[in-house]
């Protein structure tokens, strides 16, 4: 009798815990752990920037509040800049149980912001057990005074850096593996071609220059292939380009239908994309050898379902036109369930998942003005990312 009660109790606990990991759509805001940073001492000008960035990163991770006393977890340590460079030593301890989550030094970079990002991510990993997003970057397009260019910024909106400067029409920046590779579509040589940008070596190389359209490039999780839209055979169709062998595999080819916006599944086996073969733009999925194509969404209350991004958590974020406006939604790839994450009567488009599987960056357009925002699938309010003049859109969140 006692054993069976115990087993039932365990099962209920397991169910409630798994439900807690499920996505909550309420506006209540997520649960947070309090961190006491009062015992972290900083010396010098750079270290002050370190402290501000660290606090901001910890709050933006969504997992923490930062307090001056009475926190559940106490941080101790220092950040010093001297002749030997910039370095920090941080420990994090559970106040009640005295369990030590972290106790180590950091000195990888003389850049105080980057060092703070590194510490914040280490704390998220050590305390919560998931990847942090402080060191990640976001690529996007800025359209300003008639010029369009690719920009990159830190995930906290700082360090906004122009990547291209030719002002030519460009679209769809998309990260490859790591934080140094971007692919995008540019017209700077006269036609829409796909290029790879090496951010470290500051070089640009054309990946695809077939006749007609080359666009919508998305790099596979292993970095070896690119899914993209080509019209070279007389119709905009989806292909996979193997970057080493340069071999092309047709993925989805339908006469009279437009295909666009491919996005790889996290395990690299399938691709979700947009096709209007059913009469309106809807989401479809196909395996990477081109077989087993399945329609995932249909025209109904939502007239269009576009711009998919397949996140590490396994759910597909996309933009759904409902009641005349685009809303960011999530879809379970078995196609059975979907959730609407945004509600305001304005356009929310082009979602891109953060590698923490929790945050999503997207384009918010109101009155034909666009800016980039970050939403939290666990309920924290959205945050604005871009502040400079111009229209900012087509964001993509780096994979690490």
């Amino acid at each position, binding site marked *: 009798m006692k054993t069976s009660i115990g087993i039932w109790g365990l099962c209920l606990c397991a169910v409630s815990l798994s439900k807690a990991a499920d996505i909550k759509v309420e506006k209540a805001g997520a649960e947070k752990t309090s961190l006491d940073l009062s015992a972290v001492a900083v010396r010098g000008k750079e270290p002050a920037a370190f402290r501000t960035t660290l606090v901001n990163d910890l709050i933006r991770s969504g997992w923490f509040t930062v307090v001056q006393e009475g926190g559940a977890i106490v941080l101790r340590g220092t950040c010093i800049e001297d002749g030997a460079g910039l370095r920090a030593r941080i420990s994090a301890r559970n106040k009640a149980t005295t369990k030590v989550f972290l106790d180590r030094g950091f000195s990888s970079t003389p850049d105080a912001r980057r060092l703070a990002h590194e510490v914040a991510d280490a704390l998220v990993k050590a305390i919560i057990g998931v990847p942090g997003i402080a060191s990640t970057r976001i690529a996007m397009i800025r359209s300003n005074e008639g010029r*369009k260019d690719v920009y990159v910024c830190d995930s906290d909106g700082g360090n906004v850096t122009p990547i291209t400067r030719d002002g030519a*029409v460009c*679209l*769809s920046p998309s990260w490859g593996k790591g934080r140094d590779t971007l692919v995008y*579509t540019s*017209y700077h040589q*006269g*036609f*829409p071609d796909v290029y790879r940008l090496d951010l470290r070596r500051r070089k640009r190389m054309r990946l695809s220059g*077939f*006749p*007609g*359209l080359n*666009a*919508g490039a998305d790099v596979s999780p292993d970095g070896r292939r690119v899914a993209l*839209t080509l*019209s*070279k*055979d*007389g*119709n*905009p169709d989806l292909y996979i380009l193997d970057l080493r062998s340069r071999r092309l595999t047709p993925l989805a080819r339908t*006469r*009279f*239908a*437009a*295909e*666009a*916006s491919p996005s790889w599944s996290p395990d690299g086996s399938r691709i979700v994309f*947009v096709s*209007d*073969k*059913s*009469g*309106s*733009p809807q989401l479809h999925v196909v395996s990477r050898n081109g077989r087993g194509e399945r329609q995932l969404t*249909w*025209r*109904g209350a939502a007239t*269009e379902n*576009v*711009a998919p991004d397949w996140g590490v958590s396994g759910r597909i974020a996309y*933009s759904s036109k409902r009641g005349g406006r685009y809303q960011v939604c999530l879809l379970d790839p078995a196609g059975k369930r979907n959730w609407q994450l945004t509600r305001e009567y304005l356009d929310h*488009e*082009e979602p891109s998942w953060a590698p923490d599987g929790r945050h999503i960056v997207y384009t918010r357009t109101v009155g*034909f003005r666009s800016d980039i925002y970050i939403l939290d699938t666990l309920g924290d309010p959205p945050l604005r990312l871009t502040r400079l003049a111009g229209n900012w*859109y*087509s964001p993509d969140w780096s994979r690490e």
Partner: protein
Amino acid sequence: MVRRISHLLPVVLCVCVLFVTGCPPRDKAPDGIEDLDAQKPLPGDIPLADRVPGIPVTDPESRFPAVLFDYDSFMVRDDATPTIESVAAYMKRNGDVNLVVEGHCDERGSREYNLSLGEHRALAVRAHLVRLGVRSDRIQTRSYGEENPVDFGHSEGAWRRNRRGEFVFYR
């Protein structure tokens, strides 16, 4: 006994066929959405030839008005036919000239999907020219999606003017 089974056979076959082909597509709802296949059929896909560099042609004879498209459609309208026929005639008179058809969309809809729709518009105009006897390797396509409007307004009029195909010649 045998006769009753043979009566059942067509029923069984129909059920099997329905089972294999699945239910009819849900998009054929009576709410005004037209099936793409119901549009005027286009000729089979005509592959694009390699791009050939050239210098833009600027003389007045090479300027043609844009041809306009309906919302979310790449079907060449009947009122576009005179312009396209003039373009074909111009290209036949000037055998050294090549053409890039540019496809454009209005600002509504997804940017990436609009690139493909704009490309469809350019390809449709190109197919029409090929039907009129212009060699297909003389015509390239270039879609700008919604990136290059001719009217920066946000009205129905602006949207209509932006849904267009344009003709750019090179020598």
